[in-house]
């Protein structure tokens, strides 16, 4: 669609409508099917390459974040289970980090995910969300992108960089998905690490606090945490004797306090289930949720893509063509008319031919014409409009009998365009008398039967006609009403 941005509607509509009609049964298609079909017809090898690069870039980022999660998960467990065989692994640390911290981070992630419509009315909440998103592990994609081949990097920037506005929703859920993938990898690695440690070492768990905490309080906490599995796995629910036996003081140098070290290892099912239920499970659920949101974001982006409605209009509206396939060329409107007109006294008396079909003979109009053209008249004939072809021939014959040099004036309606008939008549006229006999074209204009100035456009039209006749002895003679003789 961004490629189409530079194209005009007149180019887009024929193309898109042709695509729509190229599919058999175009009416039976659903909107999404129609759009997919349209896309498939326009997709270029370049587009396919970009799509492959984006998919491959995404995979690489996912793998990178997963590996980072595994590494951090292993390191965290190694740190928390630091045990030299003398003291005990403090359960308080484990619960705080593996349950408390993980749940807090999950909670903050959920807050960061909340849609704007739910948080609009809380002042400052948007900034808080943005801050939280800034710490999202998914944002490390930028770091990973740097180490990727150029093609993959370009693919990622197409989706998350250059077209960020269009893909806002996709970008958001893609980054959250990557973050959850990181979280899942972290927890799986942590679980495996705990299992490996327990399987390969003797780990003694204990709890210790300066505060005077009653073992029954600890019991209520462990019961609360064990609630999800207490019914089907009671062995993983610590009991009071175990809690009391696990209470230790460092001054006792981790001494067994008369309790078998084997008993202190009974905490491991509880620890692993805490990690699974409060670390892995929420992250796994969030990952599934984010993946679903991401898919829905892709669909929604396609549904709300800018220009989608216009594209559908182009696909579904009939292409109406009304233009000619070819147009006239060689229009000589641009050629300026040669100023082949004059307004000056014509000393010799003219043979006048009334071609206009107006009542001129023996009228006031004739006097006006003669005055306006500074003319005198020797004879007068009628031809052209209102006359038959025989009349025209008769006039030509009569004129031929008169002196061969006597100039001719042809009275014309200025407002009517010059026709081929007049050109033919002049050509026949030219055959009589001297070839250098002057012929004056006298276009006139009337208003309420009185002579008025000829409009400039009309005058130019007659000048153009005179030029087209290619006869140097033919001139347009301008009639200027009111001119002095």
């Amino acid at each position: 669609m961004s490629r189409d941005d530079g194209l005009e509607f007149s180019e887009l509509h024929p193309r898109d409508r042709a695509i729509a009609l190229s599919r058999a049964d175009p009416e039976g298609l659903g909107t999404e099917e129609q759009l997919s079909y349209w896309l498939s017809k326009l997709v270029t090898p370049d587009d396919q390459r970009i799509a492959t690069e984006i998919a491959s870039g995404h995979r690489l980022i996912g793998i990178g974040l997963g590996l980072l999660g595994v590494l951090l998960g292993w390191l965290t467990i190694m740190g928390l289970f630091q045990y030299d065989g003398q003291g005990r692994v403090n359960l308080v640390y484990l619960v705080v980090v593996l349950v408390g911290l993980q749940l807090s981070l999950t909670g903050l992630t959920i807050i960061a995910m909340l849609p704007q419509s739910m948080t609009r009315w809380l002042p400052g909440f948007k900034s808080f969300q943005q801050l939280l998103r800034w710490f999202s592990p998914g944002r490390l994609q930028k770091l990973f992108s740097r180490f990727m081949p150029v093609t993959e990097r370009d693919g990622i920037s197409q989706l998350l960089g250059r077209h960020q506005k269009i893909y806002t929703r996709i970008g958001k859920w893609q980054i959250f998905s990557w973050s959850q993938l990181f979280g899942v990898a972290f927890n799986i690695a942590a679980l495996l690490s705990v299992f490996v440690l327990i399987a390969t070492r003797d780990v003694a768990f204990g709890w210790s606090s300066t505060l005077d905490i009653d073992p029954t309080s600890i019991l209520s906490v462990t019961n609360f945490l064990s609630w999800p599995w207490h019914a089907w796995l009671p062995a993983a629910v610590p009991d009071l004797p175990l809690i009391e036996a696990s209470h230790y003081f460092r001054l006792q140098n981790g001494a067994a306090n008369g309790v078998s070290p084997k008993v202190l290892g009974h905490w491991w099912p509880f620890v692993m289930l805490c990690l699974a239920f409060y670390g892995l499970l929420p992250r796994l659920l969030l990952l599934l949720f984010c993946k679903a949101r991401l898919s829905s974001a892709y669909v929604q982006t396609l549904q709300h893509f800018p220009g989608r409605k216009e594209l559908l209009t182009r696909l579904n509206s009939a292409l109406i063509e009304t233009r000619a396939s070819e147009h006239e060329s060689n229009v000589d409107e641009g050629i300026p008319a040669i100023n082949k007109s004059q307004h000056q006294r014509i000393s010799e008396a003219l043979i006048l031919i009334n071609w206009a079909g107006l009542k001129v003979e023996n009228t006031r109009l004739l006097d006006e014409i003669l005055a306006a053209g500074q003319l005198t008249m020797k004879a007068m004939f009628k031809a052209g409009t209102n006359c038959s072809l025989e009349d025209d021939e008769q006039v030509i014959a009569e004129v031929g009998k008169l002196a061969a040099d006597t100039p001719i004036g042809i009275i014309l309606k200025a407002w009517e365009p010059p026709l081929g008939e007049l050109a033919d008549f002049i050509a026949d006229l030219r055959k009589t008398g001297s070839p250098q006999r002057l012929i004056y074209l006298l276009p006139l204009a009337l208003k309420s039967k009185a002579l008025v100035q000829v409009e400039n456009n009309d005058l130019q039209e007659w000048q153009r006609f005179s030029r087209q006749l290619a006869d140097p002895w033919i001139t347009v003679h301008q009639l200027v009403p009111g001119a002095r003789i």
Partner: protein
Amino acid sequence: MSLIPRFAVVGHPNKGKSSIVATLALDDSVAVARSSGTTRHSQSFPMKVDGQILYELIDTPGFQRARKALAWLQNEEKKIHDRPEVVRRFVDHWQGKDAFVDECELLRPIINGAGIIYVVDGSRPYGAEYQAEMEILRWTGQPSMALINPIGSDEYVEDWRTVLNQYFKITRVFNAMTVDFYKRTEILNAFGQLQESWRQPLQQAVGSLTEMRKNQHQLAAAEIAKMVVKMCAFKLEKKISSTAEPMKYQSALATKFFNTLRKLEKKCRRQVQSIYQHTHLHSQEDAIELLDSDLFRLKDWYLWGLNKIQLSAVSAAAGATAGLAVDAAVGGASLMLGAVSGGIIGGAGSWFMADKIARQKISGILPLGGKVLTYGPVTNRNFPYVLLGRALYHRSLIADRPHAQRDQLILQQTDQIAWLSRLNPQRRKQLDKLCNHLSQAESPVETRKSLVVWLEQTIRHAEK
């Protein structure tokens, strides 16, 4: 008789035949000239809907030797019912010869079954020279109608009507230069009345054109909305080194900013012209310039958009909205003081800031050092109103412009002043809300959608 309705537009030279064809065929590339003889060959303008021809208009050259042609026909005539056949013989006989080039060209489509649309100029008087050509057309025996095209004035329209009624079944006045869309479709329906079998395809054509017109309005609304949202949110950034003097870059950045906005507006106009099939108007840059009192001539902003008082009121309302949000956040404990003070600051601020366009700022320290110089987006609250005013006005000029028009687009400022006041209060309120979102570049996708709906309604209303 041909199955597809075909209409030959014929007449005396230079009486606006090509103008009528250009207007009916929505083709602004037809050679329309004031000089006669511009059309030398018949030209076909088929009206196709998805490739299916519904009717065809044929532009023809004017009669040049009607008297001579009629004399030939009369000479050849044996019986009155032979007349159409005599006309056919005339065309066959003279085809390819110099004597009747134009007559053959214009009569051929008619003897092949085309209906006759005879065109005269209602601003010029009737004369006997028309009689021969009307007689020849009558000889063809084809269905015919006359169009009086008043080029310039309608001084002789009634005289013409009296004459034409004697020769033609239907006579209509049709000014190719001023006619609107509905008048065009009305004429097409009239063409359909010439022959029973032509009615249905012509009605179908009118239906398709009406649908196309509706789509054009929707597409124009979408295009304008896209442009306005983009321009209101547009900003430019330039990274400069920490030691560089920002002043050196500010002016160039501002120039680039304004030029880009101008280009965006121009691009939108071209698209709107293309949507309404005025593709050849693009080449007439000078024609568009007249309309184009520069986008950033601030003194015109009060003309295109809100005047100073309206602007102040709108800003006051926007300020008050911000204040109300504060009130809501403190649970109304501020006893609406937020709304009052917000309103005053918004109003007064906008009055004094009315001549400013966009904000310029230098911000941020980049990870590898350096600063970011930013220009935009346009902060002036009048900007969306100005953009919309200009775009809607341009659209209306284009949508109503017959395709025979070759004149410049003329800016009539007095008309324009009223566009906001013509809106009813509810639509005006919707507009103010949208413009408020646009000014603050809030949720562009939703704003664009709402703006498209608003524009579609406005355009539809204007069309009525």
